[in-house]
């Protein structure tokens, strides 16, 4: 009995410590981002302006498509080397008229392609455009973008210069959230994009492998598109990730150009975010399954099978599992050995404190412009309650003193049961924060939802909200739920520098 109990305790402590793994990996990732200067690709670049066909898949994009095309026509790029194909996916709004008007306004430079049967997803729409773009030998490079994305004038030429190296198959840019006026959610996304793009992609480049070309800014050499079959994968919800993996498996390098900036409109509501991210998370699960033979299996010609990349990939994908496991283990330990539970919790949260301080401070300095208007959301990214727990883990002395003072002021006698109650609450919160953030989505469409929705996200946390979405994606995949292309609504409120 004693040995079994000891074994159980060791197992539970192990599960709690497993919760520290994604934190340690996140620190490793951002340390690598600081070393990005050692892996810059500029030595193999030169001014290079290949004839580039830009593909814009468009389904009911009347509010954004015209402006996006206009911005592309003002790119700092040779006019004769640029063609834009608006691939209209059987839109039912005024997209065909707008696209046709732009084709008339920029004859020979803008082409309106129309699919009669739509609704088959972005990949099918892109493949329609690719077939047209590859039909003759004009295009030397293909840029795939989204209809709402606004390119800064220098961004395309900053990307094409990497294609001067024939070993490069694809180049992606730094996508920033550009909704103006934004709201609390777009500020969270703005901050998230510094971590997920400006930070994470730099570190991936140091590792020699890129996880995903941004869907709104992926430039391919023609040779690369042809090498991966001349088509975009349409069997998963993460066609851009599949393209990225296939490019690297074919032995070509994928480059992240952080100084080529493009601006995108991201969801301003929790429901919209949920829809978009559920699609992404399900796509990532599908990609994980599809490439199951490459994980942690080093192979020649690419670094997809490296241990470092596998850790980065799975720690993100399995983050909610780690959180739930750590929480359940702490709760169980609390009832069989609360002192051990407290020690394990302390170790986990000190790791959390280090991670929070390092990543938040570094991320805000990676892109100070975005950081200036998202710093509050950066600080509250894990949620207000989790931040309070972080402060308690960092400053146990002052927080304990404050607790005593508050209890005394309220006339409540201090007792051990209070301490135990707070401990148990923090263990539960580790997983419950996801449920609270999820409540934000539930109440958002109700009358008090305008206040309660943001409140739940700030209290539960934006990070936990993303974990809740990943959990929902697992459930959908396990249930073999219908794979649907739920388009993210775009309203044309991106404000980008001129």
């Amino acid at each position, binding site marked *: 009995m004693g040995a079994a109990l000891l074994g159980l305790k060791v197992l539970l402590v192990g599960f709690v410590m497993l919760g520290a793994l994604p934190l340690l990996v996140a620190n490793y990732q951002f340390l690598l981002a*600081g070393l*990005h200067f050692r892996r810059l690709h500029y030595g193999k670049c030169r001014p290079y*302006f290949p004839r580039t066909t830009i593909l814009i898949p468009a389904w009911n994009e009347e509010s954004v498509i015209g402006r996006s095309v206009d911005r592309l026509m003002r790119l700092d790029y*040779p006019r004769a080397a640029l063609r834009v194909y608006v691939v209209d996916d059987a839109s039912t709004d005024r997209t065909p008229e707008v696209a046709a008007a732009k084709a008339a306004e920029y004859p020979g430079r803008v082409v309106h392609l129309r699919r009669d049967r739509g609704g088959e997803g972005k990949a099918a729409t892109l493949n329609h455009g690719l077939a047209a773009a590859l039909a003759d030998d004009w295009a*030397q490079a293909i840029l795939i973008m989204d209809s709402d994305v606004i390119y800064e004038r220098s961004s395309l030429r*900053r990307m094409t210069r990497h294609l001067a190296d024939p070993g490069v198959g694809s180049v992606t840019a730094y996508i920033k959230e550009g909704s103006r006026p934004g709201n609390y959610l777009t500020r969270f996304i703005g901050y998230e994009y510094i971590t997920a793009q400006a930070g994470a992609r730099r570190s991936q480049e140091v590792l020699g492998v890129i996880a995903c070309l941004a869907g709104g800014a992926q430039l391919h050499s023609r040779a690369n598109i042809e090498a991966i079959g001349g088509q975009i994968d349409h069997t998963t919800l993460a066609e851009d990730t599949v393209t990225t993996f296939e490019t690297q498996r074919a032995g070509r390098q994928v480059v992240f150009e952080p100084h080529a900036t493009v601006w995108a409109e991201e969801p301003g509501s929790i429901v919209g975010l949920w829809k978009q991210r559920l699609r992404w998370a399900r796509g990532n699960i599908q990609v994980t399954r599809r490439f199951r033979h490459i994980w942690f299996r080093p192979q020649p010609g690419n670094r997809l099978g490296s241990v470092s990349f596998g850790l980065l990939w799975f720690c993100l994908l399995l983050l909610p599992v780690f959180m739930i496991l750590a929480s359940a283990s702490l709760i169980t330990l609390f009832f069989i050995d609360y002192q051990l539970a407290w020690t394990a919790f302390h170790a986990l949260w000190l790791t959390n404190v280090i991670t929070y*301080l*390092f990543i938040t401070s570094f991320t805000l300095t990676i892109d100070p412009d975005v950081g200036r208007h998202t710093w509050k959301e950066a600080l509250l990214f894990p949620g207000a309650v989790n931040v309070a727990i972080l402060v308690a883990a960092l*400053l*146990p002395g002052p927080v304990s003193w404050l607790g005593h003072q508050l209890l005394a002021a309220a006339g409540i006698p201090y007792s051990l049961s209070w301490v135990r109650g707070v401990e148990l609450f923090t263990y539960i919160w580790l997983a419950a924060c996801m449920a609270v953030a999820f409540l934000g989505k539930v109440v958002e469409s109700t009358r008090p939802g305008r206040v309660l929705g943001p409140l739940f996200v700030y209290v539960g946390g934006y990070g936990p909200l993303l974990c809740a979405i990943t959990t929902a994606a697992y459930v959908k995949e396990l249930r073999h739920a219908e794979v649907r292309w739920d388009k993210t609504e775009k309203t044309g409120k991106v404000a980008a520098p001129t």
Partner: protein
Amino acid sequence: MSQPPGEDTGPPAAGPERVFSAEVDDAVRYERGLAVKCACCILLVALVLAARVYFFGQP
């Protein structure tokens, strides 16, 4: 890949080599600056942890 002859696929007006060099220099400087920022953030974390151990650690 190379440019096909006889097409107006020339570079932007600013002078491609000069613009290219200036942009690459800026980018390299920025990336080196990130390494310094990263080191500063690590130092910040170390200072905060030291303060915790020596001043705020005891409940």
